[in-house]
């Protein structure tokens, strides 16, 4: 399963190399590939002169941490890379730097804290990574300032067709893009595995500038809160009800022609599909659609519970449906069944 390897690879924003190499290994025989100045992996498939030029994008990076100071006693201070909820950090196992040095995020034991402190959320600056080193010198033999720190969760399938793991946002999208590269097309298809989405959609815009596509589709993982303590109108998406198509988020309004076409294709082929029923958040569409003279763009997402945590949960059927729908979308362009 491609997703397992991708999910378990470390790829904090700015340090996507492992993920990129994994993907490159699998696709280098399937497509012409190129890596741009920021580290985006661009895979090209199809005929260069045909129309329309289609850009598909999924981001390789995940949220994580970066080592910002080594204390005298060998403990490591860190800062967050991307949006992580402070509350999920205490007592997480992690891997530090290129050496994947194992560590744990420690915090003072509850027994030693005053009652009012027990009620407060641990702040990032009060936490540290313990790699077992007793002094700064000992620590610096295996790690260095600026090392990226990633979560570590073994991918596991569980329950009724679900999977849990880290970084499904957006390794599910990467998985989907790798799948569609298995086929050939008679128009230009650029599958772009982008960098630095989690720190401000940094990679997608430069890739889009290079490609100058006629239309773009972003394949993502998106918020799903079909869980206790959330009201029905706040759940955004539901697990197991198929890919979610965005209408609008904080960074873009989806091109309605593409949205309509995706919904029609799904309906016609018996693929469940849902709207993303929220407008908060953003993804690479935000940059892509504003590139040069504008690019009609939409996004298709796999619903994902506990996003940005080390224990994301998805339905594998949703991922399967997403890949199918993506394939149908490209087929319909191939057959001239979709024009802007």
């Amino acid at each position, binding site marked *: 399963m491609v997703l397992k390897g991708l999910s378990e690879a470390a790829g904090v924003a*700015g340090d996507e*190399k492992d993920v*990129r190499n994994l993907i490159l290994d699998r696709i280098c025989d399937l497509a012409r590939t190129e890596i741009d100045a920021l580290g985006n992996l661009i895979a090209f498939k199809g005929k260069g002169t045909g129309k329309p030029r289609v850009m598909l994008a999924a981001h390789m990076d995940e949220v994580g941490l970066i080592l910002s*100071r080594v204390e005298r006693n060998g403990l490591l201070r860190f800062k967050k*890379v991307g949006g992580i909820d402070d509350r999920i950090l205490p007592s997480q196992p992690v891997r530090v730097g290129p050496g994947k040095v194992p560590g744990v995020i420690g915090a003072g034991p509850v027994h030693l804290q005053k009652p009012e402190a027990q009620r407060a959320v641990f702040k990032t600056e009060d936490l540290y990574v313990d790699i077992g080193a007793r002094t700064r010198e000992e620590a610096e033999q295996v790690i260095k300032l600026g090392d990226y720190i990633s979560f570590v969760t073994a991918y596991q399938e569980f329950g009724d067709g679900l999977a849990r793991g880290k970084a499904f946002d957006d390794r599910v999208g990467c998985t989907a893009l790798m799948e569609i590269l298995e086929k050939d097309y008679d128009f230009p298809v650029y599958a772009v595995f982008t960098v630095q989405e989690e720190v*401000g959609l940094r990679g997608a815009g*430069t890739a889009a500038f290079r490609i100058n596509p006629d239309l773009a589709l972003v394949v993502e993982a998106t918020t799903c809160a079909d869980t206790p303590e959330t009201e029905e109108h706040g759940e955004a998406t539901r697990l197991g009800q198929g890919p979610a198509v965005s209408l609008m988020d904080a960074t873009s309004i989806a091109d309605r022609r593409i949205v309509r076409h995706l919904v029609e294709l799904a309906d016609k082929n018996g693929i469940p599909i849902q709207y993303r029923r929220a407008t908060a958040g953003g993804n690479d569409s935000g940059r892509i659609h504003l590139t040069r003279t504008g690019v009609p763009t939409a996004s298709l997402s796999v619903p994902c519970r506990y996003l940005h945590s080390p224990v994301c949960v998805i339905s594998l059927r949703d991922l399967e449906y997403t890949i199918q729908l993506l394939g149908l979308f490209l087929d319909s362009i191939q057959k001239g069944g979709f024009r802007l």
Partner: protein
Amino acid sequence: MEAVELLERLSTEWGISGYENRVAAFWEKTITTVVDEVRRDRLGNAIALKKGAGEEPRPKVMVAAHLDEIGLMVTKVDKGGFLRFTTVGGFDPRVLLAKEVTVLGKKPLPGVIGAKPPHLLSAGERKEVVKVEKMFIDIGYGETRARELVSVGDPVVLKRRFERLQGKTVAGGPFDDRAGLVVLYETARELERVRHEADVYFVGTVQEEVGVRGSVVSTYGIEPDIGIAVDVGFGDMPGTSEEDTIELGKGPAVALGPNIHPNLHRDLVEVAKSRHIPYQLEIAPGPTGTDARAIQISRTGIATALVSIPLRYMHTTVETLVTSDLVNTAYLLASFIGQVDKKYLEGLKWS
């Protein structure tokens, strides 16, 4: 001109965001002696090109420092001729009270930021931070004359006084980012002595303090292979954590994080080590609040670095730095640029 003199001279020029002409003009006049061409782009960025010795097409390196400073702007000529104002860029309102200012009206007008004397304050008022909207500038004229001389929208600058403190420490301002402009000049001067293949574009950017704007358009125009932003970083002082600060006098901080190409970081550090230039590290977990933010994502993406000059009391009128840090930064940049050739650019490609 020596670094410290140039810093003093540059910091006396006025140039709040959007009104950088005077700073740009003086900087151009200085740097033109050590570069091949100087031009101004449509938004006012000052661009000085020092041509390389390599064969065309030569690698292009852009080194950017911003021209603008934070300042104030008149929002209303109030009753009695007092001027109400807003801030341009991020001021801490607590440092504004009881400051000397110059209002750039029909002519430069001296003024002071007034405040109610402590004797008349209630116990509660004394503990509260005064909001900018409650402050005013007194230019000593009544309403009629004030209206003749001042319009809504006139820029206001804080009076600066260059102080030579102990050793190589100086105080005043705005050193953010005139210190960077000094480094650019010193780098160009150093490159007179260093053979370099690359064309080097020294860019004084506009409007950094209001959202890194000048670098958006200047980078687009230059389309460099490598972009390096030179700005100031938070100097160590009581009440801050060592994790968030860099030390004065210990050399430039070479940043690392997603905004920075890892090879550029690595090689700047290598150069510093091999030339025995003091340096420090600065961790940037996301896009930095400097020109590097805009440079990196221009066009198809630019390999970007950031070096920071340690500076205390940022965004006040007593910004403090050690001038040896400027010279060391310039030496580091020139040494690094000296090794940039076509082969070096090849090595920047991700494997």
